[in-house]
Each structure stands twice: as structure tokens, then as C-alpha cells.
């Protein structure tokens, strides 16, 4: 496969948007194209992550209309859906086509507009990414699934649930601290000095997950211009290379051997490391899928950054902050930055690229700039997992 590079990035302000989904996606795409200095006619295909557009705006087939909104002509435009990992699926598919030599330049990204649905209906539609036949009638929600995982984490590692909750809360405190410094984040200038007690004492959504253990519902879009590595330097002095990609699939909760060790995530991360020829020790920063606080701990362990059961203490100990073993979610993560589900995977890549360019917000920027970064995106209750390993230089 040919090497693939990211030459342009775009990202709308996350939070409540008045624009419609296609407008948000066009905003992010044009920003990415301006960033890359490429013209519309150079784009050969479009890959768009969008999880629930049919419920949000009564729109299916949004990718074709996005291509039309940008006057991209009759190029192939494909919607990719893997629930909250939709954009990462889109980026991986786009990169595969470029890598395979079919296209030299594509747009890949995602969009979501969930806030207008309101908590009740949004929870219903998000829960559609649970296994409908068995988890549907139970009334399981995503916070519910991760609440079950948190209780199991406590049992597996013989750590009292109250202690697990404190360590989980430290994820929210950290990610909100970062989000509060990020002008594109939903909670910019908000919740930056959150305390562990605030998280623990906020309302239960699904016991033991509280409101402040959760990421918000969000609107937003993010897009990337992907290009073959041999062409990339024509457009930019600082292409960021996609060194490794992984994707894994899970299934119904009841078929999982252990909710705290999802095989889909372990397998996807391994796939990415293998392709990159790198291991966790080589990675300088992470953007991981902290849809709920416990999810960040599980992600770090599955990806091999901490031993089983050790991410909780490490996080509470500051090991996932700047200066620790591995800075995690310097953008604010899903918790601080917001989680427009169809866009999140592209947003994660966007913030890794920003870090590598030295363009992250002051206070969140890692110094010196990271050489290797990695993203982790999760769809559903471990149903779709994607990982990207990015680097400032080719292997």
C-alpha cells in the first residue's frame, strides 16, 4: 500500500449549532481545503461519517448532498456509519482507497447534529447502537453500558467502587481542564476547575455513572484532506503521515468475555501498531474515546499503555497529563470538547495534527511537539473500534 498523508484539517466549533449538518460539514471541508491549499476540482472522492442524520434532520444519503453542496461534481461520495466511530471508519476507508492507488486526494471526515433531538430522544437514537434484539427491550443506554463496565472494573481489580469512582472522576477533571482552554470546545471557559467531588456528587445518570462522568450531546463537523504521501509535499511542508490504522468489530454485550477488556479494541489497536511498526512506548500523545470516564481507563489498558487495572491509579496520579507517562486528550476529549458522534474520529485526528504542528491552544500544547500520536474511537457498546497512528515523518 502507498503511504497516505494528511495535508489539510478543518473543525467547526463544537456545541449547539444553528447551521444544518450539510453546512457544518461544508464549513469543516472548506477549512481543510484552504488549510491544504487544494482546489475543489482536485478532490476525487468523499467519505463522510454520519451516525444518525435520518433522525436528526430526516436526511439519509447525506454524503451525496455534501458533495453536491460543495459542487464536487459526480464524484463517489459515501456515508460511513459505525455509530460514534463513523468518522474514523470514513477516514480509514478514504485512506485505504488513496493507499491502494485508486485516488490521489480525498475528503474524509464526519458530522453530527444531535443537540436538537433533546436528551430523551437522543438517548433513544444513541441506544440504537446497542444490540436491538437483546439490549433494546431491557432499556439499556450507553451510560448504562459503561456503568456496568465500571462495576465490573471494581470487581476485576478488587478496588472498592467508591475508589474506582474517584479515579474515574479524575478523568473528567483532567479533560474538562483541557476543554476549558480549547476555543473550539463545547465547554470552552467552562468547568475548567472541576473537582473530583463535583463529579462524584453530580446526578446519577446510570449508577455509578454521573452526569459529569459523561460527554455531552453535541453538534459539529470535522474534515481532513487525505493525499498520497508522494504528492503531499507539493502542498505542505508539514504533512502528517498515517502510519498505522486499525478497525475491529464487537457484538452484543452478552457475547463479550469481559466488558473491561473488549476484544474489538485490543484487536484494532494491535492492527494499528503492527502496521506502524511501533509500540505504545513510541507514542507521545493520545486522543482516546472518553465518552464516559471509565471508557478512557479501559481504552488505555486495551491499547497497552497501562497494565490491566492500572490506568485508574495512573490517571489519578497525573500520568496522563503533560509531564506524565503519556498525555491523553489534551483537546478536552469527548468530555470537555464535545462529542458530535459522526465527527469525533476526525476531530481526534485534527487535534493530534494540531499538536504536531505546535498549534494546540496554549496550556494544552505539548512541548516539544509530539513525533507520534494515536487516536482511539469507539462506536456503540464496543461494536466498532478504530485506531490511527500518526507521525511527523514516514517510517
Amino acid at each position, binding site marked *: 500500500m502507498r503511504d497516505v498523508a494528511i495535508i489539510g484539517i478543518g473543525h467547526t466549533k463544537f456545541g449547539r449549532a444553528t447551521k444544518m449538518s450539510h453546512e457544518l460539514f461544508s464549513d469543516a471541508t472548506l477549512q481543510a481545503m484552504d488549510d491544504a491549499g487544494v482546489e475543489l476540482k482536485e478532490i476525487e472522492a468523499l467519505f463522510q461519517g454520519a451516525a444518525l442524520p435520518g433522525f436528526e434532520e430526516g436526511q439519509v444519503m447525506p454524503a451525496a448532498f455534501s458533495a453536491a453542496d460543495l459542487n464536487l461534481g459526480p464524484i463517489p461520495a459515501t456515508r460511513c456509519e459505525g455509530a460514534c466511530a463513523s468518522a474514523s471508519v470514513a477516514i480509514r476507508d478514504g485512506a485505504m482507497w488513496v493507499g491502494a492507488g485508486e485516488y490521489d486526494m480525498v475528503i474524509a471526515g464526519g458530522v453530527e447534529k444531535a443537540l436538537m433531538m433533546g436528551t430523551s430522544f437522543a438517548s433513544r437514537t444513541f441506544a440504537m447502537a446497542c444490540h*436491538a434484539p437483546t439490549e433494546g427491550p431491557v432499556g439499556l443506554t450507553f451510560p448504562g453500558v459503561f456503568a456496568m463496565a465500571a462495576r465490573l472494573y471494581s470487581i476485576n481489580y478488587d478496588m472498592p467502587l467508591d475508589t474506582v469512582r474517584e479515579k474515574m472522576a479524575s478523568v473528567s477533571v483532567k479533560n474538562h481542564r483541557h476543554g476549558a482552554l480549547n476555543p473550539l470546545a463545547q465547554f470552552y471557559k467552562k468547568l475548567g476547575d472541576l473537582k473530583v467531588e463535583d463529579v462524584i456528587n453530580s446526578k446519577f445518570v446510570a449508577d455509578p455513572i454521573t452526569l459529569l462522568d459523561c460527554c455531552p450531546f453535541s453538534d459539529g463537523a470535522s474534515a481532513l484532506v487525505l493525499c498520497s504521501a508522494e504528492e503531499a509535499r507539493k502542498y505542505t511542508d508539514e504533512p502528517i503521515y498515517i502510519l498505522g490504522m486499525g478497525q475491529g468489530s464487537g457484538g452484543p454485550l452478552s457475547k463479550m468475555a469481559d466488558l473491561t477488556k473488549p476484544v474489538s479494541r485490543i484487536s484494532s489497536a494491535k492492527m494499528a501498531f503492527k502496521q506502524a511498526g511501533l509500540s505504545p512506548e513510541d507514542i507521545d500523545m493520545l486522543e482516546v474515546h472518553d465518552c464516559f470516564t471509565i471508557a478512557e481507563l479501559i481504552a488505555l489498558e486495551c491499547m497497552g499503555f497501562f497494565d490491566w487495572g492500572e490506568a485508574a491509579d495512573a490517571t489519578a496520579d497525573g500520568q496522563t497529563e503533560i509531564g506524565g507517562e503519556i498525555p491523553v486528550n489534551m483537546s478536552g476529549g469527548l468530555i470537555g470538547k464535545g462529542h458530535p458522534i459522526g465527527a469525533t474520529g476526525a476531530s481526534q485526528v485534527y487535534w493530534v495534527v494540531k499538536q504536531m504542528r505546535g498549534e494546540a491552544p496554549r496550556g494544552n500544547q505539548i512541548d516539544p511537539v509530539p513525533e507520534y500520536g494515536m487516536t482511539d474511537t469507539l462506536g456503540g457498546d464496543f461494536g466498532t473500534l478504530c485506531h490511527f497512528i500518526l507521525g511527523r515523518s514516514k517510517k
Partner: protein
Amino acid sequence: MVGKEREEMEKELKGYTVLTHAEYEEGIKEGKLLGLRCASCKKITCHPMPVCQWCSGRSLERTELSGEGELMTFTIIRVPAEGFEDDVPYIPCLVKTKEGPCVVGRLDYDAERASQVLISKQVKLSGAYTHKGDKFSGGTHTCPVFEVIG
């Protein structure tokens, strides 16, 4: 002459499902947890799948599980999805059956008293919960309900 006899094509139509999901749900309503026994590895698959959940074996026959097992984990839903407002608070749970497979269901227990000590307790199938469904659920669906027995 090219083309295939239509009668032959009709004869070839065949389902690969030994136990359908609808039959599984009917079983729960009758107080039975139905599953499949694999001829290759002898293990039990539940909820039903077209192949063995352990070894992917294709030779399956129907069986009935004891309905007993161990509570693996649970949660108490306080903020429900649309359509579940009347149930709040309720307790989704994951049960590892005596026969091996796990099943997701509801736990029949006082939500205000439910705590971490429930985990690992023995439970048994005590009923069925049928949700009324909505425009998106493809009709009503039923899940197992468990009670703590020790």
C-alpha cells in the same frame, strides 16, 4: 437450454435458523430460557445464533437452559431513553448462566437498595419484561427478568 427450473429454485430456499429470535422471546414469556447445543463442542449458545457462539459449529439443536446463573454486573438507570420513562429507576443486568453463555436482562430488585454486593449473587429467571416498543423497534420485544436467590 440455459436457465434453472423455478420449482428447483423454490426447493432450494432454506432457512439456516434452528431457533429464531421470536421463538426465543416466546420461550422467555413462558418462563423458559431457550438455547442451542452444539454437536461439535457440546457447549450452549444463548441468545440464539445461526452458528455456535463458542466454536462456530453449524450443527445445533434446541435445548432449554436452567435459567439459573450468577449476576456479573448491573446498573440502575436514572435517565432513560425515550419510551422507558415509566420504568425509572430500573436495573439492566448481565447474567452468566450455569450453562456458560451470558444473557442481558432486567433484575427484579429494589433499585434504592441495589448495591455492589449484589454482584456474584446467584440469580434465576423469574419472569419476562416486554417493552411496548416504538416506531423504530420493529414491534414489541421481550427480555428475561432475573431475581436474586442467594
